[in-house]
């Protein structure tokens, strides 16, 4: 749904905001010049893509715009937490918790839209029914993992939240990969002549 409604203006604004936040971080902590310049280069590349894309209304243009918008929000969030940390507005634990919550939200959004990415049947290189099954399953698992990840970073003790959240995400990714392999194997054995 985001992909359908997003225009070029909010995308460019979000990318510019991320760029400005990276510059502020560089000013506050020049020792990490390499890291900040890397982030600025990444955002600048995104901005270049957004400008090149123009006001394209095709499916891919809308999808790229939505991805750029999501990525710039994530980068801006991280950079804003870093500024708050350096200015002494946030304690180390709060900064870590905020970042954990942002990662959880990113997992929820990614998982939610994963089954909505449909490729044309004529370009299908594998069984579409299997791909659809795995995408739906992966979407649900990522959303569930994102919710648990966010919940852990909000409510669990700070020293345990990191390990538990990582285990949840790793477990979800393992289950997705395992299901993919099982379905692929089942398809192969069904296709084999008896």
């Amino acid at each position, binding site marked *: *749904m985001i992909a*359908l409604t997003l225009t070029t203006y909010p995308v460019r604004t979000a990318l510019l905001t991320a760029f400005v936040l990276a510059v502020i971080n560089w000013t506050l902590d020049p020792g990490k010049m390499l890291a900040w310049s890397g982030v600025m280069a990444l955002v600048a590349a995104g901005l270049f893509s957004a400008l090149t894309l123009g006001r394209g209304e095709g499916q891919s243009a809308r999808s790229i715009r939505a991805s750029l918008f999501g990525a710039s929000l994530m980068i801006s969030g991280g950079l804003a937490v870093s500024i708050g940390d350096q200015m002494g507005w946030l304690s180390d634990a709060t900064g870590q918790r905020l970042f954990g919550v942002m990662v959880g939200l990113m997992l929820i959004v990614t*998982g*939610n*839209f*994963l*089954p*909505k990415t*449909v490729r*044309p*049947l*004529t370009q299908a290189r594998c069984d*579409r*029914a*299997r791909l*659809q*099954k795995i995408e*739906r399953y992966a*979407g*649900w698992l990522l*959303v569930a993992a994102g919710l648990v990840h966010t919940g852990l970073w909000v409510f669990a003790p700070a020293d345990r939240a990191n390990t538990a959240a990582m285990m949840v995400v790793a477990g979800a990714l393992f289950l997705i990969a395992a299901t993919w392999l099982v379905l692929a194997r089942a398809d192969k054995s069904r296709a084999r002549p008896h």
Partner: protein
Amino acid sequence: MSTVFKALSDPTRRRVLELLKAGPMSAGELSAQFDVSKPTMSAHFAVLREADLVTSEKVGKSVVYQLKMSVLEDALLGFAQAFGWQLQDIPSAPGQAAGSGPDSANTRKVSDP
């Protein structure tokens, strides 16, 4: 989002989405599962396409439908199935009787000749 609620408010359209969960199906295969006329089925497909819950593609001589639901929309479908949302349950605009819109004609069951 209102187009999604409208699409999920009809049992036939919900059944179409359930059938598509198994994989892409042609319009003919889907229509064969229902006791409704082809124009009525086409109207249902149009509502689903408008809500961006399915995509259609011409493969050879037939039109093939594919599911295009986010996790949230999938969960809404589950709720709609569980609680049996109907078109009449959705509040209509002032001055318009519930179920009197163009959609009500599409959801009326018509037996195939």
